[in-house]
């Protein structure tokens, strides 16, 4: 399914997820290969959140195939997914504002030095790495001890992405990274997503903003009412067609002509 023809990094086929009587996902198929950005588009309630939570190990699929590097997997917890190289950056749950950049960056994977009981958090190394990694994406945090709360929303997203990349993610799942950001902040995040792709990672970019998707995406999978409507490469569709697919078409077109422009 990957654009370059090789085995996709992760792939799901006919994935379904039921919560009691609610069918959240009903046959979703998609995949992402190395060095590409797959945009997952869908309106509210389309099943985007359920899908990424399944991919990131929070939910277990009710049925369907879930392949990592071509091998079927079953994740018991988000930790398993992380260990398999699938890192998820949640929109607002990625960072703890009161903690320093370094503490956030290494949260859950703190580097230590020394022997028990004198094993301590290696802050000199952690501060250096955090600073270097941030510099690499063009954010000069001169003081890695400053609280993440002092960073802008875009910078926080970038810290979260940088963290995932640093810890060896192969696939990066970004849950609406731009939805709460301003224009310049969005462009900062989108540039960084592109940078990550060039490094050879697979990126799944979840959004309901078609413009943002079109700016960085190589392929687009449209989700509607728990099903995939299809996957399109960048050349195949234009912005408007994507928008219509995502929103179920007609009503939006009607509204659009009523308002005299694209919604």
């Amino acid at each position, binding site marked *: 399914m990957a654009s370059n023809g090789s085995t996709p990094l992760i792939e799901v086929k006919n994935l379904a997820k039921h919560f009691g009587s609610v069918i959240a996902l009903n046959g979703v198929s998609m995949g992402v290969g190395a060095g590409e950005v797959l945009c997952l588009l869908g309106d509210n309630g389309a099943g985007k959140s359920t899908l990424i939570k399944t991919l990131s190990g929070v939910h277990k699929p009710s049925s369907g195939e879930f392949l990592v590097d071509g091998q079927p997997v079953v994740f018991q917890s*988000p*930790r398993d997914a*992380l260990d398999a190289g699938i890192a*998820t950056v*949640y929109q607002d*749950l*990625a*960072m*703890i*504002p*009161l*903690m320093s950049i370094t*503490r956030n960056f*290494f*949260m*859950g*994977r*703190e580097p*230590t030095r020394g022997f028990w009981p004198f*094993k*301590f*958090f290696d*802050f000199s190394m952690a501060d250096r790495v955090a600073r270097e990694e941030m*510099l690499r*994406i*063009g*954010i*000069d945090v*001169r*003081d890695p001890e*400053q*609280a993440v*709360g*002092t*960073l*802008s929303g*875009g*910078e926080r997203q970038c810290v979260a992405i940088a963290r995932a990349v640093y810890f060896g993610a192969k696939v990066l799942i970004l849950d609406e990274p731009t939805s709460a950001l*301003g224009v*310049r*902040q969005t*462009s*900062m995040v989108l*540039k960084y997503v592109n940078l990550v792709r060039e490094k050879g990672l697979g990126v799944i970019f979840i959004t309901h903003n078609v413009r943002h998707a079109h700016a960085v995406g190589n392929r687009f999978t449209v989700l509607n009412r728990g099903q995939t409507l299809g996957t399109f490469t960048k050349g195949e569709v234009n912005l408007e067609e994507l928008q219509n697919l995502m929103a179920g078409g007609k009503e939006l077109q009607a509204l659009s002509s009523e308002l005299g422009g694209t919604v």
Partner: protein
Amino acid sequence: MADASGALATGKRDERIKDISFGARLMRRPELGAIAGLVLITLAFLTMANSTMFTLSGVITFMSPAAQLGILAIGAALLMVGGEFDLSVGSMVAFAGLMFGACLTALHLPLWLAIILTFAFAAAFGALNGQLVLRTGLPSFIVTLAFLFIFRGLTLVGLKWATGGSTQMRGIREVVQGSPLLELFGGEAFTGLFEWLARIGLIDAFKNGQPKVTGLPVDILWFIGLAILATYILTRTRIGNWIFAAGGDATAARNSGVPVNRVKTALFVTTACCAALVAILTVLDTGSTDARRGFQKEFEAIIAAVIGGCLLTGGYGSVVGAFFGAIIFGMVLIGLTYTTVDQDWYLVFLGAMLLVAVLFNNFIRKRATGER
């Protein structure tokens, strides 16, 4: 620092980032409030109180209650940074005191076994508190409030049962006499050092050459030792980072692979064990235990932690702050007796201090995180 996309293009320093002054760096320390408060209170007592307050014996007199409260406050501070409260620590002091006393006087166990059993009981109840909070998802405020009453009630019932109707249990000093562990949990340390200091005239001595202060009460040593240990754990270890993360945002912490439930349970156990330690220290000191031990100490411990910069919402705070917060308490409680001021002003002070500390903390936090 609204955004750094300008810097993104060039990779150079953003011209809109200011240098951070030393003052601003200082403001970022959570314990600043407590230290400032301690300085203010010390200055106030230096001018108001009888000068004997700041002699060696005077300092030890106010450090002793500060130490007992401080040990609880250290546990409370760690737990608050971890995002939870424990309102049952005061009652736990009484309950652990009862268990300790009963092990010694009713079951005639040796001191070492009684101490181990007391800590084990306390740890088990701490874990119970933690598990109830984590599994039910109820606020720890409510769960531990329930245990505030349960432990206090159990203490009363247990004391009457163990002593045949009294709410006080005596005769503990007699049964532990001669135990080598007493050195660790009771009495005074460094007595030889103090004698020597008196002999060479560095500290006040009576006419016969005996020092006026014969040694450092062990509870003060425990207090200082625990403060150092807890500070090290909180600020310099991986577990410390987990505590901050669990308190700052449990979901984000979990998503990043932090074992939040284990961390929080361990913190509840730690708090309960701090209460057990205070119980053991005070019971061995007085030779008795009663139903009112540790009364309202949970509030004082939380207040000391808040004065020390802990946020009520968790994820931010310091053990050093709680350490100084507890000293402020001891100083005011005992210090008022060195002045002409009515002692009952203590409670007024306590409330006022809490209010000032919370307001100050909110201000500091906004400055620290650049919250807008």
